[in-house]
């Protein structure tokens, strides 16, 4: 028995694993060298595992559960666990109580009349053992199944695609712009207590356009600001824009001689040709 313990690698169905090493067999009787006992007891995954082992050792079917000898053996294991003060003993005690109960029921004489209806007191335990055994089998299947990172590996390839990722620019809806303007203006009114005038947008746009033209050409002929295709409204808008630009001191209107051509230029440019 001792040698089986010290040489646990012999081929047989492993009962469990102790620190990663398979435990192939348990001692045939209850003599266990003290230093090995803890390892043996810990190799059971629970009271059901121990019970199953005890039944299997007698080469019996679960349904034949020999309650008397099994209970005796089980209790002896549990006693050893208690001596070792193994924490896992608690779960084993619950099972011990159940076995004791079944044993006591089986020892009681049964009234003959109720014999047919009487459920075998072992039935519930047998059911649980069968279910546990099924699950133990399932656990074995899982262990044997091909596993990622153990039996096969996911294949990956490198890619240069990340360098093609472009920074997406935020989107704005037109309505958001209007709301933002309204909000800014409402804030302004709160702060400044004055009404902000709302000029016709087309005038302001034309103002921008004239200033933009003056960026590239230092002066413009007044007449060039008007294009006949725009019709009367266009002429009016351009004229208002020029007036507004003059009013805001953004441009100068220059006429060298009476009735000569009128030019407009950036403010200051008339006097100093420097521009930036």
């Amino acid at each position, binding site marked *: 028995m001792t040698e089986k313990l010290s040489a646990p690698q012999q081929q047989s169905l492993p009962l*469990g*694993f102790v620190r*990663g090493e398979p435990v192939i067999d348990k001692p045939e009787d209850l003599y266990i060298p003290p230093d090995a006992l803890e390892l043996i007891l810990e190799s059971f*995954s*629970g*009271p*059901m*595992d121990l019970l199953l082992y005890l039944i299997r050792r007698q080469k019996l079917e679960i349904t034949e559960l020999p309650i008397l000898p099994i209970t005796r053996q089980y209790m002896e294991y549990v006693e050893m666990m208690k001596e070792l003060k193994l924490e*896992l003993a608690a*779960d084993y005690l*619950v*099972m011990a*109580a*159940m076995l004791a*109960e079944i044993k*006591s*029921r089986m020892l*009681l004489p049964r009234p003959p009349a109720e014999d047919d209806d009487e*459920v*075998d*007191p072992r*039935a*519930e335990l*047998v*059911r*649980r053992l*069968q*279910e*546990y*055994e*099924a*699950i*133990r*089998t*399932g*656990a*074995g*299947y*899982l*262990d044997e*199944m*091909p*596993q*990622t*990172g*153990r*039996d*096969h*590996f*996911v*294949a*990956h*390839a490198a*890619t240069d*695609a990340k360098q093609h990722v472009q920074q997406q620019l935020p989107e704005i809806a037109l309505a958001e712009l209007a709301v933002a303007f309204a909000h800014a203006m409402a804030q302004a009114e709160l702060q400044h207590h004055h009404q902000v005038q709302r000029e016709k947008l087309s005038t302001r746009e034309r103002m921008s356009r004239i200033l933009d033209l003056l960026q590239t050409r230092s002066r413009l002929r007044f007449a060039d600001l008007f294009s006949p295709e725009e019709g009367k409204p266009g002429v009016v808008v351009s004229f208002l824009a020029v007036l507004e630009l003059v009013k805001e001191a953004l441009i100068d209107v220059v006429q060298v001689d009476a009735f000569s051509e009128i030019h407009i230029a950036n403010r200051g440019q008339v006097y100093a040709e420097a521009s930036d």
Partner: protein
Amino acid sequence: MQKHQIKQLIEALLFVTESPLSVAQLADYLSEHGMDASRNQIREVLQELQFDYQERGIQLHQVASGYRFQTRAELGGIIAGLWQEKPPKYSQALLETLALIAYRQPITRGDIEEVRGVSVSSQIMKTLQERGWVKVVGHREVPGRPQLYATTNEFLDYFNLQDLSELPAIPEPPQKASNTGPVAQEKTAETAPEESESAP
């Protein structure tokens, strides 16, 4: 885009994504990028790819959450040697808990404890959830509303399965012998003796 280009693209996508890609995900990706390929066309491409790689060192495999390329099964043992760390070896307790959740889902912690006869260690449940193999899918409407656990697609992916029906069969749970309804194990063990018919 030509069909062979769509095939190249699908192939490349499968190799660069972290997780497997489903037909639906591929279809979405293609249509978002202005390529129209029906799901059937995509399936056809995947079949072609599976065929193309049949004899190669890697193969296109379908798992629960989609398709992925993985190394040929026979090579696993040799390739595992590439890494210093050995692949994890799971304890009997963890495997039994996982098997219970996989085969008997949805299942409560109490159910697991009843079958295994031991209290379920929180560490094991934590490990299973951290690995993404197990998740809470609801509550059983009994006092205490215990959580019901089930396995995930990641579980199936890890074990190389497409769905639970591919798990090797184990015996069905045997019928309860006596009273119906789940009885807590402690109750059966501790209080039953006083109440049961065994009292004369």
